[in-house]
Every structure is written in C-alpha cells, then in structure tokens.
C-alpha cells in the first residue's frame, strides 16, 4: 500500500544512519543540573524548594495552579544551590533551580506504582499525567493533560500516535519504538482511555520499516500502524491529521475540534512510566548527533543535564563546532553556551561544523519562483507574508494567514534567493502578540481611570 502524505513539504537529506542503529543508553546527569521552571507552553511553575534544601529524584520542585501549565521535578538527588534566572535553550531568560548532584540518585518516597489501568478513571489518568509534569516530547511541549482533557461536548474518535520523526538526524523516537514497545503500548492504552478515543493509529514515516513491522505485529483490534511518506514536516500535528484521516483542523483551533488527539511516542512512554512506576518526567530520550560528532548516539538523559556533559559522553567533535542545535535542523534552536541544560522539549542535539551551516548574509531579491508557495504545508504564501511583515502591514498579513504558519521553515529552506521568510513571519507573529499586549494594557488603564 502506498504511504500516506499531505500536500506541500520538502524531501531532505536525513543523516539518520548516524544513530538509528545505536540503542538508547542511560547516562548520568551533570554535576550540577539546571532545571528551568518553564519547559512547557503555558504558565511558568513557581519554585517550592529553597536554597540549601536536599531534594530527591522525582521530587516536585515547582508547581503552578494554572490549567495550562505543569509541575517540575528534580532529576537527581542533591542540594539546591540556587534559584536564579538563566539563559534557556529557546533563547529567552527564565527562572531555574540549580541542584548539586550528589550522584546517589536517591528516589523520593512518593514514587510508587499507581493503580492498574483498569481501575483508573479517565479523570484520574489525566491527573496522574499532570502531576508527572508530562508535556509533548516531540518538541512542542504542550501540556499533555490539556490534550487528554477533552472539553464537554467534543467527541474524540481517533488517537494518533506520532512516530513520524520527520526532522533530519533525530532518531530517539525511532529507538523508543523499537526498545520501549511494551511501555509504548501501555501509554497509548492509557491515553486512549483518558481522551475516550476508540480508534488508535500509530503513524510512522516509511524510512523506519523496522518500527512499522514490529509495531504492526503488536497492534490490538482497535489499533493500526499507518506508513507515511518520508517528507518533512509529516510529524506536524496538522499535517499528520490531514495525511492519516483527511481531516483539517480549523484555523485557530485544536485537533479535538475534528475528533482527534495526537501524542508523540515518547510522551506515551512517559505516561506509562508515570502510571506503572509513579515516576514523573525527569528523563528523556535525546539523540546527540551530527557528522562531526565522534561517537553519536541515543541517550536517556536526566532533565537539566548540561551540554558539556553530553559532549564529553559522545567524545567531542572532529572539527570546530559551528552550531549546537536543540531539536532538528529545520525547527531547532541554536544555543549560546555549552552550559545550557537539556529540557523537556529537547528531542535531539545536533552539532554542526562551521562549514555545514554557514551564516547567510544579505539575501538575493525574490525572483518569484514560488517554491515557498509550492512547498508550504499550510498552503500559505510566504513570499507575500515576508513582504507584508517587513512593511509592517500586519493586518493584511494576518488575513493572509500569518498566525496559521507552523514555522516549519520549508519556505526558507527551499528559497533560492536565501531569503529569511519564516524568520520574518516569526517577527510578524511576535509583533502581533506584543501589539495585543499593548492594547490590553491600554484597556486596563482606561478601566482604572474610569473606575
């Protein structure tokens, strides 16, 4: 059967062979772990420990009362050194808990297996998932309990399990599917119960034949493995839903609007850990890879471990480093310093040499080749959006879909003039948010005046 796909997108050089045969290896945390209090979309957690406290593995160190927000846990045992703002991998500054790792990895006494899946109600599963601090591990870091908590009146019939792993280089989801199959199916079952989905589809790009074969054998009666064409950004939630179910998520809404919940394979395994062992999300699978890396591989890394430690583990690089990218080459963020920590959304670490991704200077003029239009998986016109944003015509840009952009970067990738298309679109989106904030403030201050 032909692999399913969506319209648009690009075929890339995948470089997956660097690590796709390398089994997941557990590694120790760095001597000091840096655990940011906001590693998710939504409200930042507030610290609930203080300098000098001894914390244990799995102990909650930060929490929030907001619905869109999750608690944060310690990945090591040791002493809290300080709570301070630090540079996060997304380039912003945020509060983080610095913990001196004592190397004992002493478990918090609260870590105990939960009830069996049959005994748990959907509400209870959602609560466990929230308390475990689980967020979308594909990189988007949307709190998983919010996804599973389907609002009244919405019916979810499909749970899509995202094993597309469409970014080049990254292979940690590939290895999870092969090596953590039992937990994967347990987590899928739990997620399906929580959101009430009757049908399950595990979606995998056809460059991972071994996963497709293995998981197809393990599928139950309401479950199916779907092979997808290897094309970026197939793992994008909206592209996945279009390819597999031929449904389109209406602009500005979430997938349950069309009866779908999508979770990443790594997230499913994290859910299993939270129920079976009671272990919150304190570790994640990370591919540390790149052609210049001496011993690239896939690792289970305690959250908060710094990049220096991982560079040591892979034995350094053959050439001077140009960029260190958290995530894949298409959507990842390049970090400033090697002392930045692995966070919940770090799906991989890609190390590129200085020649592999040189800085792009002044772009050439647009020659209207329309490659950006042809390849946009959201069917936008990035060339127009770039022009409108750079001329500060944001209202027009909004009408032409500025906020529909998923920032996959296909437009900038294919542009022969090397224009900064998605980058301009990001500027426009941020400017829209800033503008809304200014207006809200104006309204608020007016309300105070008239009161």
């Amino acid at each position, binding site marked *: 059967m032909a692999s399913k796909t969506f319209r648009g997108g*690009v075929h*890339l050089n995948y470089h997956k062979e660097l690590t796709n045969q390398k089994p997941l290896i557990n590694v120790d945390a760095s001597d000091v772990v840096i655990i940011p209090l906001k590693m998710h979309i939504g409200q930042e957690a507030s610290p609930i420990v203080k300098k000098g406290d001894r914390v244990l593995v799995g102990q909650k160190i930060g929490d929030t009362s907001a619905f869109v927000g999750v608690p944060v846990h310690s990945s090591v045992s040791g002493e809290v050194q300080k709570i301070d703002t630090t540079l996060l991998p997304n380039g912003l500054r945020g509060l983080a808990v610095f913990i001196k790792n004592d190397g004992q990895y002493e478990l918090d006494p609260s870590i105990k297996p939960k009830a069996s899946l049959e005994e748990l109600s959907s509400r209870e599963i959602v609560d466990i998932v929230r308390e475990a601090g689980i967020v979308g591990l594909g990189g988007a870091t949307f709190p998983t309990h919010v996804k599973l908590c389907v609002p009244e009146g919405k019916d979810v019939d499909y749970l899509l399990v995202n094993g597309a792993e469409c970014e*080049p280089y990254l292979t940690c989801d590939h290895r999870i599917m092969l090596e953590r199959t039992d937990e994967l199916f347990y987590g899928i079952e739990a997620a399906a119960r929580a959101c009430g989905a009757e049908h399950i589809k595990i979606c995998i790009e056809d460059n991972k034949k071994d996963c497709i074969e293995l998981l197809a054998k393990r599928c139950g009666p309401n479950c199916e493995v779907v092979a997808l064409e290897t094309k970026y950004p197939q793992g994008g939630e*909206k592209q996945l839903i*279009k390819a597999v179910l031929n449904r*389109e*998520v*209406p*602009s*500005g*809404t979430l997938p349950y609007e069309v009866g779908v919940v999508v979770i990443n394979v790594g997230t499913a395994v994290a859910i299993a850990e939270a129920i079976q062992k009671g272990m919150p999300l304190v570790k994640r699978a990370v591919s540390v890879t790149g052609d210049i890396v001496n011993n690239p591989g896939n690792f289970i890394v305690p959250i908060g471990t710094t990049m220096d430690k991982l560079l040591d583990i892979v034995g350094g690089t053959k050439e*001077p*480093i*140009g*960029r*260190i*990218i958290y995530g894949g*080459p*298409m*959507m*990842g*963020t*390049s*970090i*400033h*310093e*090697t002392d930045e920590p692995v966070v919940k959304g770090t799906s991989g670490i890609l190390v*590129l040499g*200085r020649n*592999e*991704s040189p*800085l*792009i200077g002044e772009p*050439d*003029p*647009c*020659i*209207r080749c*329309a490659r950006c*239009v*042809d390849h946009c*998986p*959201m*069917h*936008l*016109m990035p060339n127009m959006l770039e022009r409108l944003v750079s001329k500060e015509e944001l209202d027009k840009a909004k009408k*032409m*879909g500025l906020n*529909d952009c998923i920032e996959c970067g296909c437009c*900038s*990738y*294919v*542009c*022969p*003039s*090397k224009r*900064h298309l*998605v*980058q301009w679109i*990001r500027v426009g989106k941020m400017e829209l948010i800033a503008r809304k904030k200014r207006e809200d403030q104006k309204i608020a201050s007016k309300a105070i005046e008239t009161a």
Partner: protein
Amino acid sequence: MAEDLLIIASSPHIRAKDTVQSIMYSVAIALLPAVAAGVYFFGWYALAIVLVSIGSAVAAEVVWQKLRGQALRVSDGSAIVTGLLLAMNLPPTAPLWMAALGSAVAIIIGKQVYGGLGANPFNPALVGRVFLTASFPMLMTKWALPAGYDAIASATPLAVMKAGGTVPLTNLFFGSIPGCLGETSALALLIGGIYLLIKGHIDYRIVTGIFGSVVVLSLLMGLDPVAQLLAGGLMLGALFMATDMVTSPVTPKGRWVFGIGVGLLVMLIRNGAGMPEGVSFSILLMNAAVPLINRTTRPRIYGR
C-alpha cells in the same frame, strides 16, 4: 568572528542547494542544444549573433549598475539568460548591431527601470524582441532558409500553413525550416525543456496549460495539432519564456490560468489576426495579467 563562539541563528539551520545563480546557469545550459541547432542550420553567423547579444546584455547591466551606484550583480547570470533568449528570438540574418541594441533595451527598459532582478513585470527578452519588431519590421522578418536549401528567402511554416500549404512534420521537429535562430528545432528545445522540468526550474502547469490549450483549440478549429505545436515560436516560448519565474504567477492555480491563457491567445492571433505568429505578444499580454491572476487564485489556507 571568534573561532570558539557558537553561531546563533533562527531556524532552519540548513538550506537547499539551489541558488538564483545555479538556476540561471541551468537555464542557459538548457538552451545550448537549441543554440547548437541554430548554428547547424544557419551557420556560424548565428553564433556571432548569440555572443553579441549576450555580451551586450551583460555590458548594459554592468553600465546601469555602475551608473546607479548599485552593487554589481551580473554574476547571478540573469543577464546572460536574457541576452541568450533575445538572440534565440532574432532571425538568423539579423545584423549584429540590432542584436546588441535589442539586448540593451531588454536589460534596461525590460528589467532595470523596474528595479532590477525580480521586479520586472514583463519578460525582458520579449520586451527587446517586440521593440525590435516595432522598430525594424523588415529586418525582423527577413528569414533565411537553413543551410543546404537553394533559396534566398522564404516564408515561415506558419505563413505557409496560413496560406493553405503544408510543411513536413519531420522538418518542423528537427528544425530545417525558416524561422528565428533558436526556435526552429523542436527537438533541441524539448531536450532543454525536459532537463529544466526534471530540475524543477520550470513549472509543468504552465507548459501543460499552453500545449494542452493549443492542442484542444487546433482540434476544434480543424488544424493539425502537431504542426501547431512544432511551428513558430511556441516551443521556445512555452518552455523558456512563459515559464520565466519572475514574470509568471506564484500560485499553483494561477500558473494553470496563465498557461491556458497563453495558449488561447496564441491560437487566436495565429488564426484570427493579421500576423502569422503571436507567441511573444501572447506571453507579454499574460505577463500583464499576472498581478490580477495572483490576487484571484490564492491557495486555500489549511483549515480555512
């Protein structure tokens, strides 16, 4: 930049290999079979026309950019392509000064006055050709028979067909017919066109739209569709001029509209107007419609 500092940039961190320059040089390479055919059928003088035309286009671009105090960007290859295309559109008897003048007009009036690369609404080479046709109608229609034919001047196949005559299809296909320097050999043009289609440098929708509408209209009008495809400037125009990225629509649907529009106009001019051929005018007219086509054929955004 210090050697030990990391590079910080907004994603994507990798870019595709194609550049403006690589695309332009590919187009130039794709035209070489047709240049070779022109030289084979019309002699070394054809090559002189090509070289003068390219030289003049490049010189005009350099002079303009120097005078305007702009950064020199002839190395992007677009002037070479314009000069080359203009030469392909000249009769093989054209005086060299005319080739030089046409190229300079193509670059300056056809491209630079609008703001240079990417900003021109009309195909520059066609602007040059139409300028020459309007200024020197006699010189622009002085056809020569291909080498080996014992005649001084002749009518083009389209003129012959319009007068009720027929031309052997094999002559049309291989190019041993009177016509412009680069337009006679359908075979040579197809080789280049297929190369560009495979590389993704020309859009299949425009090409299919033109060929498709010409075939359909030929059948409706009772004309030989194959002869209509092979004769005149259609191959050259459809594969290399209508597909010019800068002057064709950016939307997928728009490129269908554009291609079909060119085909319709070509058949209208060939069979309803005084001129035997109208590929240049058809493309220029559709170039003028591009902003309107773009505005009315925007793709439907996912989820809207």
